[in-house]
């Protein structure tokens, strides 16, 4: 683990549930959840796009809600549930493949996390627009149509599955 130059920071021992399994790590108190995930736990699926909570490329679930991991101090997740893009079932992402949700891929893990969350909570669409819910995930490549179409398809496919299943 990289330590800041010149100072010995007392590490904090954090235990939390990560992608369904318990994990314990010693973290620098200054660590952001994003840094811990990417550099300490080598889960590089979550990306850093801006460091200021604007772009959403760093989106993970904290207790089931999408959050910007660049704005979460790691010590705050002790005792909580964190899920990253690595926890999603690749087989279920077919609508995103088909509808052009990704181009360069840099925003994509964050987009998929938020999009999947909408898919899992379709009741939100009674009061919220898909575009409104996806507005915290900036994309520079797709112009958003591929993303919105994918989320709508994913929601619809789930609805169909439930009706037929």
């Amino acid at each position, binding site marked *: 683990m990289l330590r800041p130059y*010149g100072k010995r920071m007392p590490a904090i021992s954090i235990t939390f549930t990560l992608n369904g399994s318990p994990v314990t790590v010693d973290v620098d108190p200054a660590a952001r959840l994003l840094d811990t995930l990417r550099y300490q736990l080598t889960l*590089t699926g979550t*990306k850093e796009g801006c460091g200021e909570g604007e772009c959403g490329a760093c989106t993970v679930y904290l207790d089931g809600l999408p959050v910007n991991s660049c704005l979460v101090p790691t010590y705050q997740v002790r005792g909580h549930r964190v899920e990253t893009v690595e926890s999603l079932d690749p087989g279920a992402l077919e609508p995103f493949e*088909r509808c052009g*949700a990704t181009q360069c*891929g840099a925003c994509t893990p964050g987009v998929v996390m938020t999009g999947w969350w909408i898919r899992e909570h379709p009741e939100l669409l009674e009061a919220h627009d898909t575009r409104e819910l*996806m507005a915290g995930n900036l994309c520079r490549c797709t*112009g958003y149509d591929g993303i919105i179409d994918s989320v709508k398809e994913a929601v619809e496919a789930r609805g169909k599955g439930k009706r037929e299943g």
Partner: protein
Amino acid sequence: MKRREALAKLTGRERYVDDLPLEGFLWGMTVRSPAPRGRVTAIRFGKDVDWSQFVVVDHRDIPGPNVVALIEEDQPVLAAGYVRHVHEPVLLLAHPSREAVRRAVRSVEVVVGPEPAALDFRVPPAPEQIQYGSDNVIKHLKIEKGDVERALAGAPVVVAGTYETGAQEHVYLETQGMIAQLEGDVLVVKGSMQCPYYVLKALQHALARDATRVRVIQTPTGGGFGGKEEFPSHIALHAALLALKSGRPVKLIYDRGEDMAATTKRHPALVRHRTGLTRDGRLVAQDIEVVIDGGAYVTLSPVVLSRAIIHAAGPYACEHVRITGRAMFTNAVPFGAFRGFGAPQSQFAGERHMDVIAATIGIDPVELRRSNLLRDGQTTATGQVIRDGTDRLAVMERALELSSYRDKQREHAAFNATHPTLRRGSGLATFYHGAGFTGGGEVALQSRLRVAGRPDGGVEVLSANIEMGQGTLTVFTELAAARLGLAPEDVTIAEADTGRVPNSGPTVASRTTMIVGGLIERAADDLRRRAGLDDSARGAAVKQSIQRWHREHPGEPLFGEAAYEKPPGIVWDDQTYRGDAYGAFAWAAYVAEVEVDLRTCTTRVIDFVAVQEVGKVLNPTLAKGQVQGGVVQGIGWALMEECKWRDGAMANNQLTNYLIPTSADVPPVRVAFLENPYPHGAGGAKGLGELPIDGPAPAILNAVARATGAEPRAIPLTPEKLMELLDGQAKVGAQNAAPLR
């Protein structure tokens, strides 16, 4: 075919440069100039840092010439005693701890004796601001056709207008970054880039290493849009210098704020039009002046200027044309390639001017374009005869039809007459984009490509062209597979590693599918022949022949090769700037529908129709995605992306303060393609990547003008600027102002 690498990207498994495992590496960072111009009189290292723990590199550590090789040898790798722009790299530091190197960068003070900086490209420089040639003009260019002065003098109507476009920041979601390390005696540089061979050339030159001792590998690249065309060479050199000095691998990743402030942006432009017409709206003379801000080093400004002036007169027939262009030196952070590369700037001006002309002479903007759009047999400003058979009127008609343009005009008139605070309008832009390098540029690139036959009977495409989201991996797979009758699973695309792939040219200029795809087709044919087959062989026969060849030649490689050949009949004179500027143009018509809230002067795009003819659409999902993405970048550039400057550097270098559209800011972008196969493009395709960003800005401003009666001439048209225009008009009592009820 679905995007080949989609699942890897969706699951987060695709690894970008900052995701790669790396043992024992140092984090690199850059110390930069605080001033726009002057002599570096001192470099002070803070006393609170143990500098012995750091690797420190300055210009004296550069083995070869202190130059980042590009067009002109003017830009140093590291400033050697003199700086020409804020954020110019002066020193490099490295340390195992990223936080430590951040602190260390803050502890270095670069002291600059300030000299008068040139910071406004629109005004002639004062004598003490001259730093390039005798007049700070980096490049002059001129296109002439007929006798524009005489034609203007005789024209029944002359309409003048001046238009401005602001800089634009790429905001690729993956910031720039490189890793450099020695593998034995070979320096290996990996990272986010569009042009591995540009980086290779720059490394060889400044590090005085020949091709056997340097290797460049492109890692999956999270967006480029031109911002990773030339700038990566700088970071590659910086990482390499630190790696060479320390003997350790070095990773250099830009923070977002640093990336926005210190790397290239779209060239700001000022364009003046003087247009002569007949009273019924036929163009007789176009006199156009294009001025762009190049910033403090030449970089690619001459080429951006070239494309800007070639497209400046628009897709119209006019017998008398003069287009002059100037790229200006200033002490701004150097500007560079950005999707469209000069054409968006000059076509913003041209297409906005068309509507200004229409309003001035009282003619419908659609009819004005109908009268003047190029018909086959007519010539462009450079004298190129257009004879591709595309029905350009049909492209426009389709856009009008899909956007319900005429019906909407009536609806808007009724809406605007009664609504207390909202105004709606639709605007049109008709435009074009030449694909590939201009004139003799493709020939000069001498692109080469190989398709290898693998022992298992499949093939591998070896090219230097990269995937940055536009679909290279998928389209290359489709082209190779289609040519040889193979399944996509039988085709691999080699990593863009200069140690393995030939130089098929940079991934720029909308050339990848059209031109490099064409090389794939020919190299596949060549492979087939070398495997002992005739040109009609496909599928299993091809696989088996390749397998048999390998059995008969164990351990030997089997390659088909192709080198770029200019299509017949293309003639271009670089001295006079006359002839066939491009082998093919793509043609487009876009319609934007806007709603303006007069209380806040905010403009919302509520519908957008994008119609284009691009030869042949090889992959509909990918092609549509390119159009939609380019349109939204254009919407951002037109309405909300504003660079705020301090001493020639971006002051609002954060995503909180430089705004790109979110999903909530744009409507669905409705896309339609017309096809007219281009015989010299792979699969009949023409270049597509940049075309879509040429049209949205003028279409939107034309729509705002229709909706409100304002006459905006500059982008970004922020709410503040629109309010100034509308209120200013109201004060003067202009006829067209739409009063608040």
